[in-house]
């Protein structure tokens, strides 16, 4: 379009004659020139600014207009696609996580086990020794005395550890003192009567039994401390699932036409989306073609969500590395969750065409559009689906652009496979794609 075309359009649009239109355009150009000469900058509201830099005129696009022009790719950011490097980056994190878990386990669980395994038998030894010691001392067997005193020392150490951990009551201390006494007082005790020995034996056994019960109950309490935490987390998770079902998934399941229906129907769904968006939570829901498949789709969707939870940190980290000045966006699992039962037999796991396979969400896809209008995204999704492509729609929550709907086709194991598939695409699609992780 040249100046004459512009003038002709002005004539047509404003119902003015050609001279008036020419005058307007001429006046506008003069106005811009005057601003440039005085301010070094001339604004074209809604489009951008002309900036005079030395003798050159530089154009700076208005951010809002830039978004309008680039509407198809809004929210897309550079991603690292080197599979080998990604693996190298991710594995240490996983290993670290596992190591952490192992360390935690090794710190907590095994020590508890050790306590149970070591301490309790030692107490049994104490009880046994207390009895046998007294009996044997009474019988004045020198050989057994030496052995028992050594075992008692070990037992005392074990009991001291128990005292520190459990903070045993006062009953325990005299017991320890009493346990120490046999070493020193063995010769004296050897002179006591058998009746006294039996009484002491019974009293010792009773104390040991009581203490053992206390220690066991204490450990049970220690172990049960984590149970409320897990129960609480479980309750929160279930509540989130129920809320998601009640307020978002169920209305859509009951009225699938709302996904691609009229704008009035769409409005009944969008508030749910807005509320989810405001809560900064990724949005996911299945596109149900058949209400009878709802249960299967829910199952597949839950798998998607689970995989998303595991995988989401890695892309975010990668994007942060690539472009630290850009804010992260959260890409949810594709909406078109399809049960494996609905996939035609013989269809490969990955591919450009066919039916979307929720099991193949671990690869790459060719993004064609990133749209702010959900209905438009659904129309695009349906268009490519009708053309036989594996069509996907993924909600993208971007801090910068808000909720976007990313339309893509194909599921590929590697970037190279995706690039190969591009050759099969029509020209209009082949020039407007973007490979990204699902």
């Amino acid at each position: 379009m040249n100046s004459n075309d512009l003038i002709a359009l002005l004539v047509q649009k404003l119902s003015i004659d050609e001279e008036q239109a020419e005058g307007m355009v001429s006046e506008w150009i003069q106005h811009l020139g005057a601003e440039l000469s005085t301010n070094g900058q001339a604004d074209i509201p809604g489009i951008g600014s002309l900036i005079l830099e030395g003798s050159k005129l530089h154009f700076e696009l208005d951010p809002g207009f830039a978004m309008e022009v680039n509407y198809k790719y809004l929210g897309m950011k550079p991603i690292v696609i080197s599979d080998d490097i990604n693996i190298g980056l991710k594995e240490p994190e996983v290993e670290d996580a596992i190591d952490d878990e192992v360390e935690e386990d090794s710190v907590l669980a095994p020590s508890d086990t050790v306590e149970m395994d070591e301490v309790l038998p030692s107490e049994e030894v104490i009880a046994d020794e207390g009895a046998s010691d007294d009996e044997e001392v009474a019988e004045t067997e020198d050989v057994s005395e030496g052995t028992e005193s050594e075992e008692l020392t070990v037992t005392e150490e074990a009991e001291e550890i128990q005292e520190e951990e459990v903070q045993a009551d006062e009953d325990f201390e005299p017991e320890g003192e009493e346990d120490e006494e046999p070493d020193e007082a063995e010769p004296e005790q050897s002179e006591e009567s058998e009746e006294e020995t039996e009484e002491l034996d019974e009293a010792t056994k009773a104390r040991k039994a009581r203490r053992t019960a206390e220690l066991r109950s204490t450990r049970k309490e220690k172990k049960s401390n984590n149970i409320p935490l897990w129960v609480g987390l479980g309750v929160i998770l279930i509540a989130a699932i129920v809320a998601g079902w009640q307020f978002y998934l169920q209305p859509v399941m009951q009225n699938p036409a709302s996904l691609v229906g009229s704008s009035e129907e769409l409005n009944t769904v969008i508030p749910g989306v807005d509320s989810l968006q405001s809560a900064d939570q990724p949005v996911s829901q299945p596109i149900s073609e058949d209400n009878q498949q709802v249960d299967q789709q829910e199952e597949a969707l839950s798998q998607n969500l689970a995989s998303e939870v595991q995988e989401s940190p890695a892309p975010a980290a990668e994007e942060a590395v690539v472009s630290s000045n850009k804010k992260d966006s959260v890409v949810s699992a594709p909406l078109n969750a399809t049960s494996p039962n609905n996939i035609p037999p013989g269809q490969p796991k990955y591919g450009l065409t066919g039916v979307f396979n929720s099991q193949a969400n671990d690869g790459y896809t060719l993004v064609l559009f990133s749209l702010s209008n959900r209905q438009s995204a659904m129309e695009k999704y349906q268009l490519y689906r009708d053309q036989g492509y594996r069509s996907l729609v993924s909600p993208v929550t971007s801090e910068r652009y808000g909720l976007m709907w990313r339309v893509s086709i194909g599921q590929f194991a590697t970037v190279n496979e995706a690039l190969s598939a591009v050759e099969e695409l029509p020209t209009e699609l082949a020039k407007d794609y973007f490979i990204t992780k699902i």
Partner: protein
Amino acid sequence: MSNEKFQDIISLLKEQLLAGEHVSVKGLGSFKPVHQTQRFQTDEKGRSVAHPPEDTIEFITDETGGDS
């Protein structure tokens, strides 16, 4: 002189650019919608980075005063 006076021209220009039209204004320059395809680069860590495609507007100064 206020820009409001030229709002009709600006709206028309914007409309044409959003439609993908190349608009040339005699005495000023040309506004041209440009599509940049996806490109791959290697970052400083040696990783392959995919940059998304982008649609934008370029401006070319009319230095000759001509009108394409």
